[in-house]
C-alpha cells in the first residue's frame, strides 16, 4: 500500500490497535502456530501438501513471527489497512487496494519487498521503523521460495475464530463500516423523489393561515400541545424587520404598524421590507455563509482575494432581484458555460474559486486534488446537503456515496481550471477573468511601476544600511577583539552595552562576537585571541595584535617587508615580543607602536587570510532591522516600507473577476487509492453519484467541455431529490432559527431526521412550482401563524415535557442577534449607519499580503457602512464578528451557533464601537429632547421598540442623575455639567445596548 502526506486519512495512520488487542492476537496466533508445529506431520486436508518441510519450517521460524509482530496490527482480522490482510494465505493472495502483495519467486518485483526495503518513500512498511537487515533478507528469501504459507483461513472479515469472538468488547465493532448500498440509499428519505403530500386538516381551522400552518398544527394537535398565542405587534414588527433586513424598525415604522388595523397591515410591512435594498444585504449574507465567502485566502499564505467583492455584490443583487434559485445555482457552477456568458455569470463562478487554498503547496498535483476536494465539499454541502469528502479515500461509510462517485465528480472538476496556469511559482495564482481594456491596463502601468519602485527603494535602503554596518564593524574588527576581552565568556547584553557605547561599537555585534570567541575557541585565529586573553594582555595589545594580523591579510606578500624573526606558526609569540605592561598613559592614548607584535611569515599569513574570511561570522549584523539599525535608520527604513505599503494598498486593481473556466477535458479520472495522487487505480468516467441519479440512463458528457454545465443542470433539475429540499430548509432555518432538518449541511444518514417530513416536501414542491422564487417562499412563511406566534407559551411547562427542544414549533424560537445585526443595530439606533451599497472594501490590493513586515494587519473596521461590506479576513476575523459566532469562512455554514461567552460581555462593556454608539445615541436624545423622561422614552423606543414602564423610567432617571453628579459637582461650570450629563446618558445608553432585551429577538 501507498501512503503520503497528501491523504487526509493517511493509511499509515491506520496503524492503530490497542496493545491489549494486539496481545490477544499474539497469544492466539502463537497458540495456532504451536498447534501447527505439533500436528505438523498430519496436515489438514486443505493445506497445500506441496509445501516442503524445510520451507514450512522456514516460514514458522522467520516469517510467521515477523508478520505477527510487525504486520497483523494493521493487516489482520481487525484492521485491513489499504484493504490488505496478512493473517492468512488466501487473504494476502487476494491482494490489497494497490494490487498484488508479491510475485512469487521474484522479490524485486514484489510490493512487499519494496515496502520493507524502505527505498520508496511512499511505500515503507512497517511505518514505525525499518525492519532489521536479517528480517528483510528473510522476507526476500521467502518470496524467492515462492512465498510458501501454510495458514489457511477465511479472507473475509467474518472470521469464525472462536477465540476472537470471546473478546468481551465485541469484535464486530471493529469491523469496517460499510456504507449503505445504492439500492438502500434510494429508499432513504432524503434520496427519495419529492412526494406530493396532501395538506392535512387540523381541528383548529381558525389558526390556519397557510398550508404551512396546517402541517405544523396537525402535528401539535396529535401531540396534544397548543401553539403559542399570536405575538405582540411590537415584537412582530421588530422580529420581521431584523429578520428581513437585519436592522431594527424605526419608532415611526413601529407606530405606523401599531396604528394600522387593516387585515393586510403585516403583509404591507413584509412587502415594504422585501422590496428594500437592505433585504439583499441581509439575505445575501446568509448565502455568503454557505459560500464560505472571504476577502483573503487564509490558510497558509494569507493574501487578499482582491476581487472577491464582485461575487459578494453578485449575491446581494441576486437576492434583491429574486433570481430564480435554479438559475442562481447554474451560474455559480457553470456561469462560464451558459449560452451567453456575461460578466455577471462569470462572477458567479467565483463560488468555486473562493475556497481557502494552500497556495504555497510545493506539490502541484496535491494542490490540484486538494482544491478539487474543497470544491466538491463546498458544492455538495451548499446545494445537496451532503458530505462527499469521505469518498476521496474510500466508499462513504454511511451514505450511499461510492469512491467511484467521488472520482466521477472529480473528473468534472479536473477538467476545470481554477488556477492561472501561467503563475504557478511559490505562491500560485487563482484564475481570474480580466475585464480591463488594453488602455485601462496601460493606464495602470505607471502605478505598477511606482509600487515596484517603492518596494525596491525600501529593500535597497535596508541592504545598504546593513552593508554599512557590516563594513564599519569589519573595519573596526581589531577594536571589537580588544574590547571583547573585557567581557565574560557569555555576557548579557546589559553587560555589553556600556562598553559598546563607550567605544563606539555596536552592542549586539560586540555581544555576538564575545560569544563566538568562546564557542569557536578551536579555530586557529580565535585560539590566538584566547591565548592573549589567558596571558591577560591589555585590550590595546589585543587590538594591535589583530590590527597587524588583518593588515597582513590585506597586503600582497610581495609588498610585505621581510621580517627578521620567524614567529611560531601556532599563534602569537608574546614571549618573544614580551614588553612591559603598558603604563597608565599609554593605556589612555596608545601611541602607534613601533614594535611589530607578529611576524609576516607564511603561517601568520594563512591565519590572517583565514581570519579575514571568518570576520563576517564573528562580527555578524543582526538580521532584524530593529536590532541592527540605530533609531534614526530604523525610522527611515520603516517610513520607506510604510510608503510602499500605502501606495500598494491604495492602488487600483486591474478590473477582473475570480472565476473558473474549462481546462483540458478529462473524460475519465483514475480512482486515487486511499486518496493518494501517487497511487492510481481504475479510471472512472465523468458522472453523478449513482444513488442520486434521477434517471436510470447514465449521463452523456460533451467531449469538449468539462461537464460542469451538465452537473449544474442535473442539480437544478426539478427531479433532483435534494436540491430544493436543502434550499427550502435553509430558508426555513433563517426564518425560524432551526431547520426542519436541523443539520442544514447534512441530509445524509448521520444528519438529523426532518421534524416535519411532509411539510418539507410540500415546501420544496411549492418552491419549484413558484419558479424557484425565494421571495415567494418568504411570503408564504411570513404569512403563516407559525411565524407570527409569540415566543412564550402559557403551556410551556407541559410542552417542554413533551418536546423540550421545541421541534414541533409550539412557540417562536427566541434568537440572539447575529454579529452583523448587532453591529448594524447599534449604528442604526445611534443614527450613524452609512447605507452606501457595494464595491471593494478590503483595504488591500489583489494578492497583497494581509500582514505587513511586522505581522501587523492594517485592516480596519471603523467604516460605518453595513456589516456585510466589512472585510472578511480569514485567520484574523474582526473581533466583534469572531466573538458573536461569525462562521468560519472556510466551511459552508447554514446554521450559525449562538454561544454565550464572557468575551462577548467584555466587548459590550469596553469596545470602542459600542461606547461610540452609546455616545451618539445619548447625544441624539439629548439634542432632540430636554426632559429626562422624554429622553428615556426615546432611547427605549429606538433601542427596544417599546415604551418604558413607570418603574423603568424612575430607575433610569435616578441612574443618570446619580452618575451625572459623580462626574461633576453641582456648582461646576456649564461646560463641565454638560459633559458630565452626556457621559451619564452615554453610560445609560450603553447599558441598554448591552441588555438581553436589545440582543434577543422575541
Amino acid at each position, binding site marked *: 500500500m501507498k501512503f503520503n*502526506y497528501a491523504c487526509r486519512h*493517511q493509511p499509515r*495512520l491506520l*496503524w*492503530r490497535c490497542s496493545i491489549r488487542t494486539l496481545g490477544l492476537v499474539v497469544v492466539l496466533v502463537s497458540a495456532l502456530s504451536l498447534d501447527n508445529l505439533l500436528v505438523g506431520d498430519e496436515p489438514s486436508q486443505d493445506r497445500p501438501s506441496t509445501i516442503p518441510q524445510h520451507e514450512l519450517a522456514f516460514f514458522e521460524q522467520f516469517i510467521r513471527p515477523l508478520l505477527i509482530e510487525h504486520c497483523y496490527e494493521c493487516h489482520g482480522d481487525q484492521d485491513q489497512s489499504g484493504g490488505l490482510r496478512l493473517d492468512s494465505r488466501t487473504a494476502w493472495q487476494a491482494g490489497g487496494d494497490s494490487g498484488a502483495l508479491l510475485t512469487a519467486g521474484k522479490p524485486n518485483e514484489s510490493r512487499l519487498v519494496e515496502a520493507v526495503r524502505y527505498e520508496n*518513500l511512499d511505500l515503507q512498511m512497517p511505518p514505525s521503523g525499518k525492519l532489521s537487515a536479517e528480517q528483510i533478507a528473510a522476507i526476500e528469501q521467502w518470496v524467492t521460495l515462492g512465498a510458501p504459507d501454510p495458514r489457511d483461513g477465511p479472507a473475509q472479515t467474518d472470521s469464525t475464530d472462536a477465540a476472537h469472538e470471546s473478546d468481551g468488547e465485541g469484535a464486530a465493532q471493529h469491523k469496517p463500516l460499510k456504507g449503505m448500498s445504492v439500492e438502500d440509499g434510494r429508499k432513504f428519505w432524503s434520496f427519495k423523489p419529492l412526494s406530493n403530500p396532501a395538506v392535512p386538516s387540523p381541528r383548529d381551522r381558525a389558526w390556519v393561515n397557510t398550508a404551512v400552518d396546517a402541517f405544523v398544527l396537525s402535528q401539535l394537535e396529535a401531540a396534544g400541545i397548543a401553539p403559542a398565542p399570536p405575538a405582540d405587534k411590537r415584537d412582530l414588527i421588530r422580529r420581521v424587520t431584523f429578520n428581513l433586513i437585519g436592522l431594527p424598525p424605526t419608532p415611526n415604522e413601529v407606530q405606523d404598524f401599531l396604528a394600522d388595523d387593516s387585515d393586510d397591515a403585516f403583509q404591507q410591512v413584509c412587502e415594504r421590507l422585501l422590496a428594500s435594498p437592505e433585504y439583499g444585504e441581509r439575505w445575501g449574507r446568509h448565502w455568503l455563509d454557505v459560500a464560505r465567502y472571504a476577502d483573503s485566502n*487564509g*490558510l497558509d*499564505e494569507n493574501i487578499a482575494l482582491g476581487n472577491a467583492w464582485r461575487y459578494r455584490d453578485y449575491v446581494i443583487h441576486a437576492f434583491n432581484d429574486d433570481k430564480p434559485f435554479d438559475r442562481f445555482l447554474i451560474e455559480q457552477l457553470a456561469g462560464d458555460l451558459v449560452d451567453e456568458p456575461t460578466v455577471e455569470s462569470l462572477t458567479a463562478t467565483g463560488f468555486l474559486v473562493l475556497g*481557502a487554498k494552500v497556495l*504555497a*503547496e510545493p506539490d502541484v498535483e496535491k494542490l490540484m486534488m*486538494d482544491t478539487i*476536494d474543497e470544491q466538491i465539499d463546498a458544492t455538495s454541502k451548499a446545494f445537496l446537503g451532503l458530505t462527499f469528502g469521505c469518498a476521496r479515500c474510500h466508499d462513504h461509510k454511511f451514505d450511499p456515496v461510492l469512491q467511484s462517485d467521488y472520482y466521477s465528480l472529480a473528473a468534472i472538476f479536473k477538467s476545470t481550471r481554477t488556477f492561472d496556469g501561467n503563475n504557478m511559482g511559490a505562491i500560485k495564482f487563482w484564475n481570474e477573468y480580466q475585464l480591463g481594456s488594453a488602455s485601462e491596463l496601460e493606464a495602470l502601468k505607471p502605478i505598477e511601476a511606482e509600487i515596484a519602485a517603492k518596494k525596491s527603494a525600501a529593500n535597497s535602503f535596508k541592504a545598504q544600511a546593513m552593508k554599512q554596518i557590516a563594513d564599519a564593524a569589519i573595519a573596526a574588527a581589531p577594536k571589537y577583539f580588544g574590547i571583547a576581552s573585557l567581557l565574560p565568556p557569555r555576557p*548579557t*547584553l546589559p553587560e555589553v552595552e556600556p562598553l559598546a557605547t563607550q567605544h563606539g561599537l555596536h552592542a*549586539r555585534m560586540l555581544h*555576538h562576537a564575545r560569544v563566538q570567541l568562546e*564557542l569557536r575557541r578551536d579555530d586557529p585565529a580565535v585560539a590566538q585571541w584566547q591565548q592573549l586573553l589567558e596571558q591577560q594582555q591589555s585590550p590595546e595589545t589585543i587590538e594591535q595584535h589583530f590590527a597587524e594580523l588583518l593588515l597582513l591579510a590585506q597586503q600582497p606578500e610581495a609588498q610585505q617587508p621581510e621580517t627578521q624573526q620567524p614567529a611560531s606558526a601556532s599563534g602569537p609569540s608574546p614571549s618573544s615580543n614580551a614588553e612591559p605592561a603598558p603604563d597608565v598613559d599609554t593605556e589612555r592614548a596608545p601611541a602607534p607602536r613601533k614594535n611589530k607584535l607578529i611576524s609576516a611569515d607564511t603561517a601568520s599569513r594563512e591565519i590572517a587570510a583565514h581570519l579575514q574570511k571568518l570576520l563576517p*561570522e564573528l562580527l*555578524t549584523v*543582526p*538580521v*532584524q532591522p530593529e536590532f541592527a539599525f540605530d533609531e534614526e535608520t530604523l525610522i527611515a527604513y520603516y517610513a520607506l516600507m510604510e510608503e510602499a505599503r500605502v501606495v500598494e494598498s491604495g492602488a487600483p486593481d486591474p478590473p477582473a473577476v475570480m472565476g473558473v473556466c474549462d481546462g483540458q477535458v478529462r473524460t475519465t479520472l483514475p480512482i486515487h487509492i486511499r486518496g493518494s495522487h501517487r497511487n492510481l487505480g481504475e479510471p472512472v468516467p465523468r458522472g453523478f453519484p449513482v444513488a442520486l441519479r434521477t434517471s436510470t440512463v447514465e449521463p452523456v458528457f460533451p467531449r469538449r467541455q468539462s461537464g460542469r454545465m451538465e452537473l449544474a443542470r442535473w442539480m437544478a433539475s426539478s427531479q433532483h431529490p435534494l436540491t430544493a429540499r436543502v434550499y427550502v430548509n435553509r430558508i426555513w432555518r433563517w426564518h425560524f*432559527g432551526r*431547520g426542519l432538518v436541523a*443539520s442544514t*449541511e*447534512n441530509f*445524509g*444518514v448521520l444528519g438529523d431526521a426532518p421534524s416535519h417530513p411532509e411539510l418539507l416536501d410540500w415546501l420544496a414542491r411549492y418552491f419549484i412550482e413558484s419558479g424557484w422564487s425565494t421571495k415567494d417562499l418568504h411570503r408564504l412563511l411570513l404569512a403563516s401563524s407559525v411565524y407570527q406566534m409569540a415566543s412564550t407559551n402559557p403551556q*410551556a*411547562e407541559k410542552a417542554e415535557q413533551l418536546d*423540550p427542544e421545541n421541534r414541533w414549533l409550539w412557540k417562536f424560537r*427566541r434568537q440572539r442577534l447575529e454579529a452583523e445585526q448587532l453591529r448594524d443595530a447599534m449604528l442604526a439606533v445611534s443614527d450613524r449607519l452609512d447605507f452606501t451599497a457595494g464595491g471593494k472594501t478590503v483595504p488591500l490590493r489583489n494578492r497583497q499580503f494581509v*500582514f505587513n*513586515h511586522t*505581522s*501587523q494587519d492594517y485592516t480596519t473596521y471603523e467604516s460605518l457602512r453595513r456589516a456585510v461590506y466589512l472585510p472578511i479576513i*480569514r*485567520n*484574523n476575523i474582526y*473581533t466583534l464578528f469572531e466573538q458573536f459566532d461569525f462562521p468560519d469562512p472556510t*466551511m459552508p455554514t447554514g446554521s450559525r*451557533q*449562538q454561544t*454565550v*461567552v*464572557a468575551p*462577548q*460581555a*467584555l466587548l*459590550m*462593556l*469596553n469596545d470602542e464601537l459600542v461606547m461610540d454608539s452609546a455616545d451618539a445615541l445619548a447625544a441624539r436624545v439629548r439634542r432632540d429632547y430636554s426632559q429626562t423622561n422624554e429622553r428615556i422614552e426615546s432611547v427605549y423606543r429606538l433601542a427596544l421598540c417599546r415604551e418604558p414602564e413607570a418603574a423603568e423610567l424612575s430607575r433610569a432617571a435616578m441612574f443618570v442623575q446619580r*452618575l451625572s453628579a459623580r462626574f461633576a459637582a453641582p456648582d461646576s461650570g456649564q461646560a463641565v455639567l454638560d459633559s458630565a450629563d452626556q457621559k451619564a446618558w452615554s453610560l445609560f445608553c450603553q447599558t441598554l445596548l*448591552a*441588555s*438581553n*432585551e436589545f440582543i434577543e429577538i422575541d
Partner: protein
Amino acid sequence: MYDPHSLLANRRQLLQQTAVGFGGVALSALLSSLSQAGDSARTGDAGNVPNPLHAKPPHFAPRAKRVVFLFMKGGPSHVDTFDPKPALDREDGKPPPFALPDVTFAPTGNLLKSPWKFQRYGQSGLPVSDLFPNVAQHVDDLCILRSVHGTNPAHGGALLKLHTGSDQFVRPSMGAWVTYGLGTENENLPAFLTLCPTLAHGGVNNWGAAFLPAHCQGTPIGNASLPAKQAVVKHVSNQRYAPDLQREQLDLLQAMNRDHLASRGRDQALEGRLQSFELAFRMQATMPEIQDLSLETETTQRQYGIDDPVTENFGRQCLMARRFLEAGVRFVQVTHSDSDVQWDQHGDLYRGHTKNASEVDKPIAGFLQDLKDRDLLRDTLVLWGGEFGRTPTAQGTNGRDHNPHGFTMWMAGGGVKGGMAYGATDEFGYYAIENKMHINDLHATLLHILGIDHERLTFRYAGRDFRLTDVAGNVAKDILA
C-alpha cells in the same frame, strides 16, 4: 403558566450543573443538557449548544494536569541542536547518498555539517549543541523525541498539521481539544491561552475551536508583532470608565436583565448572559494581576532573563506562562517568533540560529528550574519544538531547507522519562527511522499523558465523530515514566 418557584429551582440546578466559567454557558434546555453529558455533543443547531467548561474527569489517571507548549516558529534544525550527526562531519560537502523525497521545498544541495559542537550533559550524558548551554543543564529532565515526522514541507501546512492534525481542513487545535476534554480549573480565566502567537501560516486556526464549542477556542494574549510587554487580551480594560463606575452600570444592566428574564420565563441564554457579565467584570481584575510580572522577585525575573534585552521578550512570555499555569490555566502556548526570519534559516544558518537560540535558551532553562522549584514540573507537561526540522543538506551555501520527514521535539515533566532520547533519524538526520513518531502519535501521546484516550475524545460534527488524531495515532508508551 410561568412559575417563579420552578425558575428559582432551575436557576439553582443550572448553577450547579453548568459551571458558568470564563468560556461559556450552556444554551440548551436543561433536559437536553443533561442528556448531552459525555464526550460528544451536537452542533449545527442554534438551540442545542453543548455544555461548557467545568473541570471534567479524564478517562484515566493523568500524568499531567496541564500543558505548556514552547513553539519555535520556523523550524529549528534538529541536527544542530539535539540530534548530533557525526556522519555529517565526515561527509560534509558530499552529495546525499540517499533518496530524496519527490517534493522538497527548495532545491537540495550537498550535505552540510553542523557549525556547532555537541557536548554531553547530566547523568544521562545526552548530547546538546552549544546553541543551548542553559537548557542543557536540564537534560536529565528532557525526553528528547528524535523521530517526529509527518507535518508538511511548507510552513502553513506544517503549522496547521502540528496544531490541528490537519493541513487541509480547518480543524480544532490541540489546546481546544484539551479544553473540550478537561475543562478548566479556574473559572475566572480562559482554559486555553496562547501568548504572542503568530498570525501568519494558519493564524487563528492554530488556536481555533473550529466546530468545537466556542469556549474551547484559545484566547490570544497579544501577537507576534507586539512585544510581550504590551500583550493583553482584547477588551479586557476600559479606557473611559473606572471600575466603580462600571460596577454601577453593571448593577443597572443586571436589574434590567432580571426584569426581562422574569417576563420571558426559563431561558438559559438569558440567564447565562447575566452570569457572563459578572465573570467578565471579575476577569478585568484577574488578568492584569496575573500578567503583572513586577509581583515576582528580582531574582526570579533575572532567572528568566528579563533583565537582558536579548532574552527579555521570551523571558516575559515564559514567566507569564508560569503564572497562568499556576493559576489553573489548562493549556498555555508560548510562541517564539518574530515577523522576519524566525527559525527559518534557508540561508545563514549560523547567524539565524545563534540569534534565535540566544533569545530562548536562558528563559527556557529558567522556566524549567522555576517549575521544578515550585513542584509544578511533576504534573505539567512541557513540550518544545517547531513545525518541522531542517535538512542535513545545504540550501544555498550556508542554509538548510524544511524537513518534515524527521525532526526533534522534546518533552519535560508530566510523567515522561527524563534523560531519554526516543526514536532516531537515519545517520544523516533526513528521515525518522526508529520508533517513528508521527504528528498524530505525538497528539495521541500528549492526550494520554493528560489522562485522555485519544480514540474516545470525539465530537460529532457534520455527521461524523471527529478526533484530534483523525483515524490514526499511537501512544508512545516507552517514554512514560
